[in-house]
């Protein structure tokens, strides 16, 4: 009873809207699970017997190796940048974030084009050095190649999280270790890595979830994983039931990983005994050590950013005449307008759920917050299936209403419209906006809100007069991040877009599938440039906050 009473007190616009958003997320995911309790189709028996083992094996190989490599490279880069000074260190500090602007599927197409028979590497060897190479050596369309691509372009997740952790440590920890006679590498292994474990695991989990979400890379490389299998059952075999079952299996893997993350991360909090009196002082490297650090950094930067960008620029130069036509502008308008609508909804929903959580502070509101951030962990293909099923059943339920409005109406209205795609974007990327807004609220604290209430303003009035203006940086941050993510999203868009509706991302995918990789240069670069701008914008905002 008390629970209900407490919640009734907060029953207002905020709570009602929050409830609706959360309901949407829960529904579309629960629907996926209900399939597990229905009788399977014939296809499913076939999939289970012959294919499922392969999906699981490939998926595990991809996440294990990508996880390991991003951990090794990302952490070592974070260590170098956080504690050492070497030539161009300040440039690299930012440069290692940039690969985030290149979606993995664009990375995959670019490297394939670069390394295939007609690509610049092999043709240069042939024409200038008269050297015939074994094409197999340059074939990256396999699991190893996919790991290579994922590692390069997902690296920033580990790098940014771990380096910001390192930079928040007090330098006295490292200085003490040195005074106790330990060498730098030893300090890394005995002090820094154990301390950074939660940060490292957090970063690597993000990488793993991105790999599970991927469709563009594995499809192009011909690797069968859950994502490709879901697409194939749906579009190839028209077997919705099997697609849903695969989605549910994938979701179970995701749950498993999230639980594992919680367990390995550990409950021990290591923050109470250290204060941050003295920021880390960089140690200057000289001689061969400086050269080594510089070369390693340059290698990673070239592979993960410089080389693909130069290649894309070159392709854009030779193809822009063919690509930039009226249809292309339509594409641009499509992409931007869909992303705008989705992002505005995301920010709106984030503010409502975050504000509800802040004001009420009940268990229920905290659960809402958890569910809201959950969407980001769910692979696009799974959300796509869930949303699709939800919308089709909505359409069936609303058919009587369509008939009243228009007697000749088709049965499927909502599920043929852009609304479905936008709804899916919101579910998938709500977490991004929400995290931003929530951090913003935490920074402001509750005292302004309380002061305003004691001065006679209602919750809603206070929100518009006090909270919203103070929250502006967080809103802009959340907006930018979510916008970029929507813009480059591929699997959801491919499944849920209305017939003949193309975005930049789907066009890139289509060019690459049609063996027209150079033509993908222009749309790819646009996606990358927009992402880059957003990275710089956010970086500037962070710098400003740090003074």
């Amino acid at each position, binding site marked *: 009873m008390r629970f209900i009473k407490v919640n009734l007190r907060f029953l207002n616009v905020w709570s009602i809207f929050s409830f609706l958003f959360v309901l949407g997320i829960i529904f579309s995911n629960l629907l996926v699970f209900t399939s597990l309790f229905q009788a399977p189709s014939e296809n499913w028996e076939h999939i289970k017997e012959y294919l499922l083992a392969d999906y699981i094996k490939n998926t595990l190989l991809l996440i294990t190796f990508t996880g390991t490599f991003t951990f090794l490279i990302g952490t070592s880069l974070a260590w170098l940048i956080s504690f050492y000074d070497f030539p161009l260190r300040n440039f690299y500090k930012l440069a290692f974030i940039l690969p985030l602007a290149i979606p993995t599927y664009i990375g995959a197409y670019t490297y394939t084009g670069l390394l295939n028979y007609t690509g610049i590497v092999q043709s240069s060897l042939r024409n200038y050095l008269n050297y015939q190479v074994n094409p197999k050596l340059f074939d990256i369309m396999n699991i190893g190649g996919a790991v290579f691509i994922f590692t390069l372009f997902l690296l920033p997740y580990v790098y940014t999280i771990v380096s910001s952790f390192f930079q928040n440590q*007090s330098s*006295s920890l490292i*200085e003490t270790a*040195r*005074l*106790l006679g330990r060498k730098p590498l030893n300090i890394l292994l005995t002090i820094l890595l154990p*301390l950074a474990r939660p940060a490292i695991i957090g970063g690597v989990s993000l990488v793993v979830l991105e790999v599970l979400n991927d469709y563009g890379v594995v499809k192009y490389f011909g690797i069968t994983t859950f994502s490709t299998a879901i697409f194939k059952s749906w579009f190839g075999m028209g077997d919705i039931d099997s697609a849903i079952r695969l989605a549910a299996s994938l979701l179970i893997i995701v749950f498993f990983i999230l639980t594992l993350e919680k367990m390995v991360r550990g409950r021990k*909090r*290591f923050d109470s005994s250290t204060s941050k009196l003295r920021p880390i002082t960089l140690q200057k490297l000289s001689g061969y050590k400086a050269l080594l650090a510089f070369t390693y950094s340059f290698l990673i930067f070239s592979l993960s950013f410089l080389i693909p960008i130069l290649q894309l620029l070159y392709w854009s130069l030779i193809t822009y005449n063919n690509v930039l036509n009226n249809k292309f502008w339509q594409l641009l308008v499509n992409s931007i307008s869909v992303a705008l609508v989705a992002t505005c909804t995301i920010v709106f929903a984030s503010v409502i759920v975050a504000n509800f959580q802040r004001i009420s502070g009940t268990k229920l509101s905290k659960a809402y917050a958890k569910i809201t951030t959950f969407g980001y962990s769910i692979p696009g293909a799974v959300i796509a299936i869930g949303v699709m099923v939800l919308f089709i059943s909505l359409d069936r339920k609303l058919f009587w209403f369509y008939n009243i409005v228009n007697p000749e109406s088709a049965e499927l209205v909502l599920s043929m419209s852009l609304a479905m795609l936008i709804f899916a974007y919101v579910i998938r990327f709500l977490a991004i906006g929400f995290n931003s807004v929530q951090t913003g609220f935490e920074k402001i604290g509750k005292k302004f809100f309380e002061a305003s209430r004691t001065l006679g303003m209602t919750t809603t009035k206070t929100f518009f007069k006090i909270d919203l203006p103070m929250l502006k940086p967080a809103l802009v941050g959340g907006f930018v991040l979510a916008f970029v993510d929507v813009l480059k999203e591929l699997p959801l868009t491919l499944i849920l877009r209305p017939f003949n509706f193309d975005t930049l991302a789907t066009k890139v995918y289509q060019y690459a599938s049609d063996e027209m990789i150079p033509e993908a240069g222009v749309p790819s670069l646009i996606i990358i440039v927009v992402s880059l701008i957003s990275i710089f914008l956010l970086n500037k905002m962070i710098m400003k906050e740090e003074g």
Partner: protein
Amino acid sequence: MYVQIRDLTFRYKNSDEDILKNLNLDIMQGEVISVLGQSGSGKSTLLRMIAGLEKPSKGTIIIDNKIMVDRDTFLFPEERGVGMVFQDYALFPHLNVEKNIRYGLHSFSKKEQSKRLQEVLELVNLTEFAKRYPHELSGGQQQRVALARALAPKPSVLLLDEPFSNLDADLKGRIRIELGRIIRQSGITSIFVTHDQEDSRAIADRVVFLESQNHKSPLIKSL
């Protein structure tokens, strides 16, 4: 002289003003010295240069006839055998008390390690706390662990940076006496830095006064 500091000068990279200028200081073995000065007088920098955490722009530091730094030599902190207790204690948060102390004993044999561990734990009265983690200790206990950790490898000199700044005022008196006892008992040559005259007088054999550089008065005055 056990510790000899000659013409020690320090200037930050982007600054054109010396923080310390031609500082000379001699310390006898077993002596407890307190360096007193306002904030910004460079007293912490002095400790950091003795530890090897900062490089002087000029000058010599010799400890027990071993050159730590001069024009041609610069020993890294890990090569100096100097113990330091940081202002924020810098206990490794992921290691318990025992492991924190053992961390500096890596060159000891296993048996010696355990023996030395017991010795210093007894010295600081924390034998029952060996398995606790830093965050499970009070501020005063944390400080004693930091002290034990610094003393364990038998350093040539013990440096303490503002040892009382993180403690409540009502605890300070008791802890000051305790710290004095531990340092005396271990007989180690110690230099500690503070801005509080009372702290200085309570523990030190000799108080060295470090004045801010903008005053043209003599740098060091013995009180």
